[in-house]
C-alpha cells in the first residue's frame, strides 16, 4: 500500500514514465503519418486503433491502474463498455436505416400482397 510511511517503490523511478511518454508521442506521430497515406476508409480505423493503444498506456501507466485492485479496473473499463453499447446498438439502425435492399422486392408485380393478407 502506498500509505505506508516508507516510500512507495512504484513511485521511485521516473524513467519508465518517460519511456511511455516517448511511446505515446511516437504513436501520435504514426497517427499523423497515417492521415497522409491515403488509406481511404482505413484511415479512421487505424487512427482509432492507435488512440485505443494510447488510452490503454495512459490509463495503466500515467493513471497507475497497473497493480491496482480489480475494482478500479472495472470502472475504468466500464465507461468504455457502456460507450460501446451506445455505438454498437445505434449502428443497428444507422447501418440499415434506408435504402437497404429489403426482403420485399419493390420491382415485383404491384398487385401481389405480401404475407398476412387474410
Amino acid at each position: 500500500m502506498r500509505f505506508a510511511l516508507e516510500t512507495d517503490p512504484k513511485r521511485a523511478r521516473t524513467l519508465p514514465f518517460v519511456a511511455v511518454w516517448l511511446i505515446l508521442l511516437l504513436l501520435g506521430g504514426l497517427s499523423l503519418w497515417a492521415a497522409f497515406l491515403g488509406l481511404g476508409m482505413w484511415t479512421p480505423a487505424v487512427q482509432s486503433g492507435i488512440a485505443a493503444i494510447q488510452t490503454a498506456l495512459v490509463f495503466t501507466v500515467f493513471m497507475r491502474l497497473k497493480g491496482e485492485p480489480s475494482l478500479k479496473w472495472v470502472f475504468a473499463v466500464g465507461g468504455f463498455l457502456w460507450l460501446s453499447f451506445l455505438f454498437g446498438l445505434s449502428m443497428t439502425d444507422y447501418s440499415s436505416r434506408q435504402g437497404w435492399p429489403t426482403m420485399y422486392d419493390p420491382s415485383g408485380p404491384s398487385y401481389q400482397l405480401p404475407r398476412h393478407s387474410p
Partner: protein
Amino acid sequence: MSVTTVERVPQGDAPVSAEPNYLTAEHTVASWLLTKDHKRIALLFFASITFFFFIGGIAATLMRLNLATPGGLLQPAVYNRMFTMHGIIMVWFFLIPSIPATFGNFFIPMMIGAKDLAFPRINLASWYVFNLSGLVVLYALIMGGANAGWTFYTPLSTVYANGYVFAAAFAVFINGFSSIMTALNFVVTIHRMRAPGMTWMRLPLFVWAIYAVSVVMLTATPVLAMDTFLLAAERFMGIGLFDPNHGGDPLLWQHMFWFYSHPAVYIMILPSMGVVSEIIPCYARRPIFGYAGMTIALMSIAILSFFVWAHHMFVAGISIYSAVFFSLMTFFVAVPSAIKVFNWTVSLHKGRIVFDAAMLYALGFVLLFTLGGVTGLMLATLAVDVDVHGTYFVVAHFHYIMVGATVSAFFGALHFWWPKMTGRMFPESWARFAAILTYVGFNLTFFPQFILGYLGMPRRSYTYPAQWQSWNLLSSAGASILAVAYLLPLLYLGWSLIWGRRAGANPWGATGLEWITASPPPPHNFERTPIVTLDPYAYDPETGGYTTQEGTLHAG
C-alpha cells in the same frame, strides 16, 4: 445472543432518549443549510421534491380538468405548456431523485452500518445543484413554460417551439449533475463503507436496488447531459447538430435521448423495487423468497435497460432490422421483472401477514407494476406498438409504472421509515385509508386511458372527439380522488410530527441495521460500529420472532 421479548408494535409512548438525535443536535439555520449529515440532507431533498411533486401535480390537475370536456377549458398553448412542464418536473424533479435522494440518502449509510456517505460535501452540493436547476425550471415555468414536450423532440424544440425551451433544457442539464453526484456517492459508499461482516450477499435488497440505480444514473446521465447541452446550444445559436435543414438527423436526438430516458424509467422503478423488497418481508414476517434471484434480477435489469432504448422509436423511421432487435431485447428485459413479481408474491406464502399502511402500499405496488408490466409487453410487441404508440395507451402504461408503482412505493417507504426518520408514529387507520384511496383513485384515473388509447386518442391533445368523453370524464373523476389520496398523508403525517406517539427504535420489528439504533438516530447513526453476522430478513413466521442483522434474536 441476547433474547428480549417485545410487542410487535409497542403501544403507548416509547421512552425518550436523553442523547441528542440528528434533529436536535444543532438548531441554527446554518446547521441545516451547511450540514454534512446525510440524514439532514435527505430531509432537505425531501422538502425540495415534495414542493416539485405538488407543482407537477397542479399541472396534472389542470390537464385532467381540461380534458373532462371535449371542448376544453384551457387555451391550447396553456395546455401544451402544462403537459410539458408536468413531464419535465415530474420526471427530473420528482421521480428520478424521489427515492434515491431521500430514502437512499437517509438509509443507505444506516443499512450498511456506516457513519455517513463517502463524500458528504458532494452530497450537500448535490442538493444545491438540484435546487439551482429547480430555480431554472421554475423560471421557465413562471415566464410561461416550454411547450415542446418533455422529450424535446427536434426540430420542434430547437426551431419551431416558442416558450422557454432553452431554460427548461438547461435546467435538465444542470439537474443531471445532481443525479450524478448522488449516484457517485452511493456507488463509492456501497463499495467502501460497509460495516464488518456486511458482505454483498448480506446487503438488504434496498441497498442492491440503489446500487443498481446508481450505476444506471452514472452511465446514462452524461449522455443526456451532452444531448441537452447540444440542444440548448442549438436553440441558443440557431445552428446545431439535430437540424435537418443543416443535414442533421432528428432521430439522432431521439437515440441519445432514449439512451438516457429509457434507463431513466428504471432509475424510477428500481428503487421502488428495493423498497417493496424491504416492506414485504417485514410485514409478511418471513424471509424474502429467492434473495439471490432478486439481486441478479436487479442487476440484469440495470444492464439490460441500456439495450432497449429504441423501442420508443419503432414508428419513428428507424430501420426495421433495428426495431426487430430492440423488440427482442425488450422482451428479455421483461424476464427479470417477471421474476421479481413472482418472488414478491411467493414471499407472502406461509407468512404471518400484517396489513399495515406500508404493506398495503407495497401490495398495491405489485399489482400496479404487474399491470404496467403486461401492457409494457404489448408495447414491446412491434405490430401492436405501431397501433398504440403515441396514444393514451402509452400514457396509461407509463403512468402505471411511474406513478402507480413508483409513487406507491414512495409512500410505502414514507410510512415504513417515518418512525425512524421522525421518531413519531402516525395514525395507522388514516394511513390505511389513504393507501386504499390511492389504489382506487389511480385505477379510476388511468385504466380508462388504456381503452382510449386503443380507440386511437392521440396523447398531448387538448381536445378530442365527443364520443370519447365518457372515458375522459371517468379519468378526471379518478384524478380528483387521487389528488385527495396524495394530499391526505401530508395532513396526518404533519399531525404526527407534533401529536404522534413516540416510536421506539424498532416499531415494526424489522431486521435491518437502521432499526438497531434510536429513532430518530443520533448524529452519527450508531453508538458503535455494528458487526453484521446474518443475512437480512431473518423473520420467523412460525413464532413471529425475528433476528436483526447483528444477530440479536427477538422472540415473537
